[in-house]
């Protein structure tokens, strides 16, 4: 507070800095302290906004769940009248179980005499009858004499734990599938093309029975289309008799995915394709060639985990367009239904076994459905165990990967669903399957959580290079002034303690 003016400074036109209000010690120190207070208050905010959210994961629980193995009890009952065969059958089946450990993994076969113990799940029953082997619901009718035991045990082994489909034809499990039926005319302009098809009849007669049977496992959506220009990406080779051939190598590149739009992209469900391909009039008939170059009798082929293709050779005499009636489709769609069965991984019955009261082909028996459900449940539990384990491993491995409440919630839900599947395995197969599918979906959703994207990697020298120009210039003066002020304050204190007269410039601060 400069109340009076120093005559000397008055004369020079300059004022003594210590006389200025804002140079007073307490004001100056307050200003500097304000900067530091802001910095200290901002540190928690900066810490909060720059740190990655990494919630604790239930790692121990994941590890313990991942160790567990699902066990399905399979109860097989022998009629009381044939109780004598029990030890022999048991011995033979144990041999089979040991012979194919991968097929019997997770299956626990229990034999008993019927009526002896009440069971929680529906048991499989054996009945005696001479003649051909029959399946009726969960009953297996076969000759139960002691000489027939080796054959019976082999059949039971194939029915309860069918051999897996060779190759990787079978689609991976998905709760939802889309079936896309396409009728492709290679070139309608060349004449003799297929104009329409009675697809509704084809589906309802040949596909729907399978789909309704499989509705326990999957939810299906169907779509169909007709295209009039679907060129091939290669030239089929000409073979004798004015025919054209597709070599085995051509089949691998048959689908012209660049130019054929085979399914709508409305959803992300897995798509099973079924294509009827009508070759152009110029290249008819089109045959599939065997590896020896001779035409095969078959005119359909299967692409693993993709779908089936049927080549429809219209008579070359046909000039104008043609409509495929339901009768025409009756010769094509059985191929598709066979292919669908293969692609969905439905096990085949042993050739000597027939289904009783089968009024149509492709009746899926309870034995087949149960075996498929058991296999899918085991696959799903393994898949979710693997996924959960890999999430825990990745989170440990990649340190700047965030994971928030949604990931943890999904992991916990997945673990709960797994727990439920373990519990339900002994009571209800369909419930166990639903729970295992839920566990897999949840585990995948946790893995693919969009928030779980690791921060980009920057080397330490990058960080210094970015932060130094920004902060060094601001922080260095702050530190320097704080130090200077601290020294001045200490000097003042020492001055007071020593009983000396305080320096002049300190006077206003004291007053």
């Amino acid at each position, binding site marked *: 507070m400069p109340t009076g003016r120093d005559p000397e400074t008055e004369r020079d036109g300059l004022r003594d800095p210590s006389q200025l209000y804002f140079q007073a010690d307490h004001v100056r120190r307050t200003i500097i302290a304000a900067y530091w207070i802001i910095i200290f208050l901002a540190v928690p905010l900066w810490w909060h906004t720059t740190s990655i959210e990494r919630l604790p994961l239930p790692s121990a629980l994941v590890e313990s769940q991942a160790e567990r193995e699902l066990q399905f009890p399979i109860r097989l009952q022998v009629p009381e009248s044939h109780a004598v065969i029990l030890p022999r059958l048991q011995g033979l089946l144990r041999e089979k179980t040991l012979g194919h450990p991968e097929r019997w993994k997770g299956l626990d076969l229990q034999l008993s005499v019927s009526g002896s113990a009440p069971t929680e799940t529906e048991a499989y029953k054996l009945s005696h009858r001479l003649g051909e082997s029959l399946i009726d619901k969960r009953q297996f009718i076969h000759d139960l004499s002691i000489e027939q035991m080796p054959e019976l045990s082999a059949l039971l082994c194939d029915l309860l734990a069918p051999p897996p489909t060779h190759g990787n034809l079978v689609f991976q499990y998905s709760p939802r599938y889309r079936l896309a039926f396409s009728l492709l005319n290679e070139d309608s302009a060349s004449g003799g093309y297929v104009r329409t098809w009675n697809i509704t009849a084809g589906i309802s007669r040949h596909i729907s029975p399978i789909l309704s049977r499989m509705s326990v496992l999957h939810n299906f959506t169907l779509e169909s289309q007709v295209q009039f220009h679907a060129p091939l990406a290669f030239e089929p080779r000409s073979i004798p008799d004015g025919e054209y051939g597709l070599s085995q190598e051509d089949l*691998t590149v048959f689908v012209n995915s660049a130019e054929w739009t085979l399914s709508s992209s409305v959803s992300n469900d897995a798509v099973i394709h079924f294509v009827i391909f009508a070759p152009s009039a110029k290249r008819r008939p089109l045959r599939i060639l065997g590896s020896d170059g001779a035409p095969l009798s078959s005119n*359909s082929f299967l692409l693993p985990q993709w779908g089936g293709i049927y080549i429809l050779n219209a008579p070359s005499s046909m000039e104008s367009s043609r409509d495929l009636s339901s009768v025409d489709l009756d010769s094509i769609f*059985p191929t598709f239904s066979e292919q669908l069965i293969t692609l969905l991984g439905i096990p085949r*019955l*042993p050739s000597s076994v027939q289904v009783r009261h089968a009024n149509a082909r492709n009746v899926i028996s309870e034995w087949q459905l149960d075996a498929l459900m058991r296999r899918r449940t085991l696959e799903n539990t393994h898949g979710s165990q693997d996924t959960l384990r890999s999430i825990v491993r990745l989170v440990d491995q990649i340190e700047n990967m965030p994971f928030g409440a949604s990931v943890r919630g999904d992991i916990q839900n997945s673990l709960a669903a797994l727990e439920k599947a373990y519990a339900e395995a002994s009571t209800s197969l369909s419930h166990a399957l639903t729970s295992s599918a839920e566990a897999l979906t949840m585990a995948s959703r946790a893995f693919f959580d*969009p928030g779980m994207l690791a921060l980009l990697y920057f080397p330490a020298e990058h960080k210094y290079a970015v932060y130094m120009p920004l902060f060094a210039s601001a922080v260095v003066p702050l530190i320097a002034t704080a130090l200077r002020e601290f020294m001045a304050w200490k000097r003042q204190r020492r001055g007071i303690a020593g009983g000396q007269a305080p320096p002049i410039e300190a006077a206003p601060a004291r007053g």
Partner: protein
Amino acid sequence: MLADDAACNSRNKFAGSVYANPGRQLDLYGDNIEVDYRGYEVTVENFIRVLTGRVPPSLPRSKRLLTDSNSNIFVYMTGHGGNEFLKFQDNEEISAFDIADAFEQMYQKKRYNEIFFMIDTCQANTMYSKFYSPNILATGSSVLDESSYSHDNDYDIGVSVIDRYTHYVLEFLEGINKTSHASMQDLFNSYDVGKIHSHPGVRDDLFKRPLDKALITDFFGGVAQAEVFPPVEPQEGTPNSGEDGIVDVDVDLDAGPAVGVANETTRAQMSSPDSIHSWTLHALKELRAWACLAVVGILVAFSWSR
């Protein structure tokens, strides 16, 4: 992924095409190119999201990498790069660590069977040095502290149209059709340092198969397996023919592991039309250095004058 719409750029005299050579023999753009990510969608984040599958649920099928444990994936990257990084969009870069971590995450979720990684930038080989996940075959155009050069300058457009390494790889691949039996070893043997003007590298320690058994078509051309289905009689009431009825005509002539139908050949391409000229790169570096000096000078002068 294409950051620049070179085909439809108003400065491109040949609208709708991107030619690989001044003679305009080969149109890279073709009739059925699908660009899933373009322009400002091409970011490091989106690239990693596509690879790892961590995409929002609303994203359409075409923008996802729908692969599984049977899929072989081909990743090709080009642009401005350096020691362990590649530039995206002039404002960010992806480091070798990021790609390595993304591949590891894909491996953990079984999103691939094998990956073939190819990169054409300056010091490209540093980019695959950090990989640590199995079943990855990687190749790059140049070693550490070495530039990659452009090949052909098209005077009608005024830019270089292709890089040397890419040019010679493309020349080799153009000679391969979908039924070819050429192996990866053949591709790597075709590298000629004298022509490419840099030292291409191959990293196969993570790859399980011998290179002369790994076919080019395992990664290119979308080749699937096919299985001929036995004719089905349209009879009512016949039992199933049984599994032995299927004629297994396995077309995979390779003795190695089978490649599934989802043989997804995914091209993640980050390409810029102005190919890497070493002189532009050096000019840029020099410009940057001088600009830094100028800024520092101005700041010093400014503070002195006060």
